[in-house]
């Protein structure tokens, strides 16, 4: 279909242009494999049946652990992935959630499984207030201010005698038998993870989510497009704090021990960031995939390398390799290359 201007007339050039454009146009697929997450959820809900055949507590523990991280990483993803504000201070909300429910449990005996949403709200309220201050700056300054937030919270919690100060607060242990002791927490985390993933999906595909993505790229442009960037990002921060706080609440009871230096360490936040980056920041499936991968790596390292500094070294290496070969995370990079399995495409 060689068009030569010497011979062709204008309309044939226009026609050729249309065909050319069609050839170059990028296609868009919006179909979703809804059955996939539902199946996964079904399997997870049925998993505890294994307990009837023996003791699979450790397996349940691993799934529960992964689910808790999936909740937190997905929550983090709202501010870090969608809005592009990398926070290394989310451990604060983890702690607020944990302590909020923990104190209620210790003093009034109300299980955190019931108070978790309240704990989430408490975390969200704090997130909202903090966000008003720290979200004024972006980029590296924000990252650092979030670390500072963590440090401040740490010092305050360390001094707060009501909640045990630096020595911590221990919570009552469940009196359930070993076989079923984990189940309440298991279901709580699995359901919370399902809810969080669903919620982030809805958020991402709302006007709000679109606005967050816009302001993550260019705040000035987003403002002039009519987006109330300040409100959006502060709300995003609060929402993400909500999920992390909720996870913290249940985690605290599961751990039975609350202590600033369990909750308020940068490693907790760093893990969230790591999971999102590795899985794919700003994607829906990314944080979940990231959580699974990181927990799995951890297990493998502990099992094969055992105890040594090599462990940290290996984690660092995995991260570097991940970043080098999947600069947009597993999900993000595969999507860019058009190789993402449809079941994982929720973006």
């Amino acid at each position, binding site marked *: 279909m060689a*068009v*030569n*201007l010497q011979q062709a*007339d*204008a309309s044939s*050039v*226009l026609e050729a242009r249309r065909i*050319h454009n069609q*050839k*170059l146009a990028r296609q868009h697929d919006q179909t979703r494999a809804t059955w996939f997450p539902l199946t996964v959820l079904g399997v997870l809900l049925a998993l505890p049946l294994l307990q009837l055949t023996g003791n699979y507590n450790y397996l349940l523990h691993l799934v529960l652990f992964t689910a808790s991280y999936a909740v937190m990483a997905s929550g983090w993803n709202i501010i870090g992935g969608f809005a592009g504000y990398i926070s290394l201070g989310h451990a604060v909300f983890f702690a607020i959630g944990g302590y909020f429910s923990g104190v209620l449990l210790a003093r009034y005996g109300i299980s955190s499984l019931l108070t978790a949403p309240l704990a989430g709200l408490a975390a969200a309220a704090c997130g909202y207030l903090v966000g008003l201050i720290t979200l004024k700056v972006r980029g590296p300054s924000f990252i650092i201010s979030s670390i500072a937030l963590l440090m401040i919270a740490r010092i305050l919690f360390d001094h707060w005698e009501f909640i045990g100060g630096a020595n911590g607060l221990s919570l009552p242990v469940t009196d359930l038998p070993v076989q079923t002791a984990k189940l309440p927490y298991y279901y709580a985390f699995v359901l919370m993870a399902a809810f969080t993933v669903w919620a982030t999906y809805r958020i991402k595909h709302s006007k709000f989510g679109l606005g967050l993505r816009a302001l993550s790229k260019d705040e000035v442009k987003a403002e002039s497009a009519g987006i109330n960037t300040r409100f959006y990002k502060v709300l995003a921060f609060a929402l993400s704090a909500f999920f992390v706080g909720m996870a913290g609440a249940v985690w605290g009871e599961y751990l039975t021990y609350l202590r600033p230096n369990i909750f308020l360490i940068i490693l907790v936040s760093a893990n969230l960031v790591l999971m999102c980056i590795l899985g794919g920041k700003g994607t829906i499936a990314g944080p979940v995939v990231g959580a699974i991968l990181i927990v799995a790596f951890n297990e493998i390292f502990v099992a094969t390398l055992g105890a040594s500094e090599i462990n940290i070294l290996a984690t660092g290496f995995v991260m570097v390799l991940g970043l080098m070969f999947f600069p947009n995370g597993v999900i993000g990079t595969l999507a860019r290359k058009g190789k993402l399995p449809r079941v994982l495409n929720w973006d």
Partner: protein
Amino acid sequence: MSDLLQVTNITAGYGDGPAILDGARLTVEPGKVHCIIGPNGAGKSTLLKAICGMLTIRKGDVIFKGERLNGLRPDQILRKGICFVPQERALFPKMTVRENLRMGGYVLNDAKLRDRRIDEILERFPVLRERADQHAGTMSGGQQQTLAMARTLIVKPDIVMLDEPSLGLAPKIVQEMFDIMKMMSQEGVTVLLVEQNAMMGLKNSDWGVVLDLGRTLFEGPAEAVLADPRIQELYLGGRKVA
């Protein structure tokens, strides 16, 4: 071979994306002004980027003074004598105007020569002289464009490739710009420019090229391009297309 630069049917694209250019040709003769026109997104800027080494060429050759340039880095190509001013003004926003000019002469090893030429330029463009110590990023659109253009005058290469030099310039300055280009070509610098201000561009050129669909559709003397009714209709806004 009298051609200074020859581009034969090249194929090129961004990353591993589709081929944006597929069959682009170009012949550049020394000392003349060449003007490339075409609709938005045709691949004009892509062609210039491919020539100067910013994109990998998948097929075809770029031959400069009988030497193949494929696979060289932009800084190497500059040292061979091809200078490129991209469309997104390639300035250093946090450096002052003077520092930007100094970077323009980075390849010159002779600092004295470089400083002399900078002085010449500041002489010629009073806007820049007034703002010699302002950060380039805070200048107005047109001022930035002026600076980007002026910077090429420091090296005095064999070929300058300009991507829409008139963009955002006030009419008075546009005229000056084309005058400078004429003068450059008289001094023996070959000019290759892309213009959407096509009338103005072609009027001030010797040779015209039409690029559309990622290919070269037409090449000829500028007057011939201007005169062609189909080209007028399709690219010059001459008549409203149905």
